[in-house]
């Protein structure tokens, strides 16, 4: 760190620098004749002592006790009263005490009361502004630190949530393949291939903050293809995507928890007919996802306690990534379950 920077950052040095410059300027102002005399130095010194007192009473007592507690009127009145008393005392000192302190010297104050008051008001005003500007910079600095901390916290939360999705998704997919294997279905090998496709997206794309919406939809399509392998002929699947989504981007793995939910709780194998409706619509920058499925019994392998983990995770992520820019409505009745999600991308 350079010496200049060190000086500027040290509070005491800042004050010494400020008062040195001020005293020099006051000395030039109070110099009575063309040459600087001892009397000018003594006069400026005494004048400055009162000035310094007024400035530090304001900065150390009045601003913290009154101004910062939003008692502005009382602050203003107290400040003016304090300055007036100090100026009066200063003039009294020059008129009556200085001749005792400095016998043989004629240190007369020629400045009128109002003019002296002006000097004090200017100094107190300027130092108050410096004080406030410094406080403002400190506030901005701490605000920036706070924002940065908040951002890091959010990022950490998102990573944690995404990390929850990956095993959750894998777990659900493996359940589906497991049920195919149990049935000794010929579709099991193809299901594994589809799973590897979806895992590729998760591994290579989901670490980005945003992915192309087309890739996210392709991922959804792959997942649906995977799920179709375990559907019976009686099951009805409606899947529609509409809108021009080539230019849009979205946070990765945002749609999949809802889609997953449809198949996990809707498709019940060959026991009875089931239905799943999935509609994705992009209108300008608004993405809508509507899903509806019937409610059946849960696959035995899925633990009851894990029910809804994906949707809860989704809500948390939406709150972090699209605060006040999304709407998520979940409706459940005896027969079916529907989800409506709208996001301003």
């Amino acid at each position, binding site marked *: 760190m350079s010496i200049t920077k060190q000086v500027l950052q040290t509070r005491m040095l800042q004050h010494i620098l400020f008062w040195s410059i001020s005293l020099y300027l006051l000395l030039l102002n109070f110099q*009575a004749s063309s040459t600087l005399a001892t009397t000018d130095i003594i006069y400026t010194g005494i004048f400055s002592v009162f000035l310094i007192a007024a400035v530090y009473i304001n900065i150390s007592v009045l601003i913290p006790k009154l101004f910062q507690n939003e008692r502005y009127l009382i602050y203003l009145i107290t400040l003016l009263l304090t300055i007036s008393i100090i100026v009066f005392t200063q003039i009294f000192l020059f008129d009556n005490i200085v001749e005792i302190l400095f016998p*043989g010297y004629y240190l007369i104050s020629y400045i009128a009361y109002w003019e002296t008051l002006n000097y004090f008001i200017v100094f107190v005003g300027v130092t108050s502004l410096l004080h406030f500007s410094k406080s403002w910079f400190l506030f901005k600095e701490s605000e920036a630190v706070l924002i940065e901390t908040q951002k890091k916290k959010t990022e950490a939360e998102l990573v944690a949530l995404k990390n929850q999705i990956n095993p959750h998704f894998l777990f659900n997919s493996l359940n589906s393949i497991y049920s195919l294997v149990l049935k000794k279905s010929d579709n099991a090998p193809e299901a594994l291939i589809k799973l590897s496709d979806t895992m590729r997206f998760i591994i290579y794309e989901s670490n980005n903050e945003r992915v192309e919406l087309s890739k996210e939809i392709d991922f959804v399509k792959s997942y649906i293809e995977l799920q179709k392998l375990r559907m019976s002929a009686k099951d009805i699947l409606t899947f529609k995507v509409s809108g021009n989504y080539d230019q849009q981007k979205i946070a990765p793995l945002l749609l999949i928890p809802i889609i997953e939910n449809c198949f996990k709780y809707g498709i019940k194998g060959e026991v009875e007919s089931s239905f799943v409706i999935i509609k994705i619509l992009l209108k300008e920058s608004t993405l809508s996802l509507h899903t509806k499925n019937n409610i059946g019994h849960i696959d035995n392998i899925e633990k009851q306690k894990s029910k809804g983990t994906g949707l809860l995770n989704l809500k948390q992520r939406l709150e972090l990534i699209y605060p006040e820019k999304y709407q998520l409505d979940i409706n459940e009745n005896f027969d079916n379950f529907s989800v409506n999600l709208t996001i301003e991308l």
Partner: protein
Amino acid sequence: MKKRINKIRLIIVSSILAFSSCGIFSLHPLYYKKDLIIKPEIVGTWKKKGDINSYIMIDTVDQNFQFTRISNNDTIGFAMGLLMLNDQYFIDILPTSISGLDMFDLMRNNFIPTHTFMKIDFTEDQILITEFDNDRLETLFKENKIRLAHEFPWKTDKYSGEVVITASTNELQKFIARYANEANAFKTPIKYERF
């Protein structure tokens, strides 16, 4: 013609120095117009006690005092202001003419007339004029003990010259009011009796 002007200037300078070595030189007057007092009792001709060749004449013209000093064959005219500071009368005199010649006409290009202040006390038959002790005042200025705007315009390497106060009227009044309280600020009063 040029020789005549030079001679007149020499007379002027010597006359002023002869008289005004007794006072403070100041660029600004000791009074504002509002401070001026008219006291009819000081109007008249006054003779210096113990000196048959020295007189002063005080007169009023248009509510202003005229102060004339006659010493031997020299006559110097002054515009005079009477004022009171801290219950004490002071006069401020500004040279206007020498031996009947208008100073402003003669010296406009070469000189700036300065004000001189004196303390004055008066009764019906007597006037006491007390001059400031110039030597003491100049010493105080040289020792930097007086904070009052001033210059030593005639200062050379070997000669400090007389001090000329350049402070404003307001500053002068404050200083004189304070300095006049000093016991050794003045010379011995000069007594004049009504003539």
